[in-house]
C-alpha cells in the first residue's frame, strides 16, 4: 500500500471523533424536541362525600373516585377540619375511608366546613398519596323514636328515645291516634287538633316519657273509644305526628315529624 498507514489512521481517527462529537452535540440540540412529557391522566382522587354530626361523634366519609384505568387502594391517611382544628387518622373499612372525630361545640355553628387531608395507599402497586381539600355541608343527625308505648285508664304513656346533638323541645302533638292492626282496624282513640304537651330533652342520647291523658280533658275533637286496649286485639299502632324544636346556638329550628310504633300487647298477636 502506497499510502502511509499513520496518515490513514490519523484521518479516520479525526473523522470518527468528529462524528462522535457531532452526534453528541446534535443530540443535545434536538433532545428537547425528542422527549415527551408525561403526567398521569385521569388520576384517582378523594372527595369528601358527607359529614354527619351525631351524638356519637362526627363521621366524615371520603369517597374514592377512580375515573381511569389506574386503581387506587387506600390504606390510611388523615383529615383535618379547618373550622374546628381537629386532626384525626382515617380508618379504611372494605375500601371505604371514614374519619371519626369527637363532637365538640364548634360543630353546632357552621353550615359547612372545610376538610383537608391526605389518603395514602397504592396506585397500581406503587405507593401513592392523594391530597384533597373540600368544603362540605354538615348533616346533623338527630333521631327521635318511640321506644315504648303503654295505654291504660285513658292515659297514654310514650317513651321516646332521644338522640340529638342539641337540646330539643318535643311537642306539640297534632292528630295522634291509636288503632288496632287488623282488618278491619278499630280506633282506640283519635285526636284532631293540637295537643300542647311539651317535654324538654337535653343534648345526648337518653329516654324521655310523654304522658298524655286522652280523656276526658283533650277537647272536643278527641274521640276515645276505649280507655284500655280493646279486648280480642293485641297488636296496635300508634301514630304520633309531633313537632320537635332543636335549640341550636344559632337559633331554634322546629320541624314536624311522624313517629309511629307498632307494638304487641300481652304477648299474643
Amino acid at each position, binding site marked *: 500500500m502506497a499510502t502511509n498507514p499513520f496518515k490513514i489512521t490519523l484521518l479516520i481517527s479525526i473523522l470518527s471523533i468528529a462524528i*462522535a462529537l457531532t452526534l453528541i452535540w446534535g443530540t*443535545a440540540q434536538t433532545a428537547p424536541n425528542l422527549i415527551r412529557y408525561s403526567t398521569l391522566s385521569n*388520576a384517582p382522587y378523594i372527595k369528601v362525600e358527607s359529614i354527619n354530626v351525631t351524638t356519637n361523634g362526627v363521621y366524615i366519609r371520603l369517597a374514592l373516585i377512580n375515573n381511569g384505568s389506574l386503581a387506587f387502594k387506600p390504606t390510611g391517611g388523615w383529615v383535618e377540619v379547618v373550622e374546628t382544628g381537629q386532626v384525626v387518622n382515617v380508618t379504611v373499612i372494605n375500601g371505604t375511608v371514614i374519619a371519626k372525630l369527637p363532637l365538640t361545640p364548634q360543630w353546632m355553628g357552621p353550615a359547612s366546613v372545610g376538610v383537608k387531608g391526605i389518603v395514602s395507599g397504592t*396506585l*397500581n402497586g406503587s405507593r401513592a*398519596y392523594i391530597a384533597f381539600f373540600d368544603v362540605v355541608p354538615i348533616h346533623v343527625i338527630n333521631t327521635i323514636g318511640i321506644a315504648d308505648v303503654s295505654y291504660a285508664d285513658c292515659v297514654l304513656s310514650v317513651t321516646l328515645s332521644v338522640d340529638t346533638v342539641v337540646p330539643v323541645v318535643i311537642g306539640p302533638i297534632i292528630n295522634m291516634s291509636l288503632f288496632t292492626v287488623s282488618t278491619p282496624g278499630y280506633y282506640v282513640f283519635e285526636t284532631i287538633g293540637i295537643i300542647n304537651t311539651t317535654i324538654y330533652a337535653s343534648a345526648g342520647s337518653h329516654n324521655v316519657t310523654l304522658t298524655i291523658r286522652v280523656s276526658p280533658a283533650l277537647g272536643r275533637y278527641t274521640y276515645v273509644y276505649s280507655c284500655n286496649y280493646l279486648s280480642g286485639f293485641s297488636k296496635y299502632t300508634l301514630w304520633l305526628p309531633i313537632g320537635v324544636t332543636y335549640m341550636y346556638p344559632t337559633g331554634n329550628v322546629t320541624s314536624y315529624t311522624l313517629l309511629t310504633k307498632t307494638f304487641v300487647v300481652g304477648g299474643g298477636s
Partner: protein
Amino acid sequence: MRVEALLQFALAIAYVVLWVFMLAWSISGANYSISLTPWGYAVRFFSETHVIPPTVYAVWLFAIDAGLLPLVWRRSRYSLYLATLFSVLSLSMLMDTILFQQRYLQFHGYTIAPTPNGYIYVSLPAKPTLGIPTYILLALTILSIFNMITRARWLGTRVIEDPIVAVERVLKVLHIECSRIEGGVKVGGIKIIRRDDSLLLVNDHRIDEVDLGTAITEAVKVGLKQPVSVGVVDYGED
C-alpha cells in the same frame, strides 16, 4: 488471521447481538422504567411506552468497527490503534447516552399530578442497573488496548483451520503460485494432499507421509524456484 483479533471481533459481535436481547443499562421500577436498547431508550410510564433514540446507534456502530477493523486491515499495526480508538469511542458514546438520560429523562422517583380538589403524589422508586452487554463492551475495550500493545501476539499461536490452508497461506504470503486440487494443494511439480490426520507429499515418483513442517518446507522449496516477491505479515509493518 490471529486468534487475538478474532477474539476481539467475537466480543464486538457478542456485544451487539446480546444487546438485542438484554439491556445494556436500565432503571427498573414498578410503574416506571427506562431501558437502553440498541435502538434507543424505551420509557415505560404506567401503561404508556415511548422510545427515544439518542446517540445509541453510534455505540454499536463503533463497537462493530472496533471488532471488524483488525480483520479487514491486517497489514499495519495502526489498524489495532484505530480499533482501540473505536472501542473507546463506543464506550464514551454509551456513557454519553446514559448522560442523556440523566440530563433529559430526569427521574426523581416520583410523579405528581393534579386532581380536581388537590393532587396525587405517586412514589416510583427505581434502581439503575448495568447489563451484561455493557460489561462485554468494557472487555472489548480492554482487549483492544491489550491487542494494540502486544500487536495482537499475546497468545503466540495462529489460527490453523486446516493444514492444507496453512500450507496455502504460507505460499500465499511468500507470493508463491499454487493451485487448489482435490483434498490438497499443488505447487509446481509436487502435491500436498491431506489424508485423515496426516499429510502426503506426492511428487512424480513417490508418495511420502510428512508432517506439516516438512510439507511447508518442501512446498516452499519447490515454490522458491518461481520468481519471488515481497511477502506480507499480519500487523508486521510499523
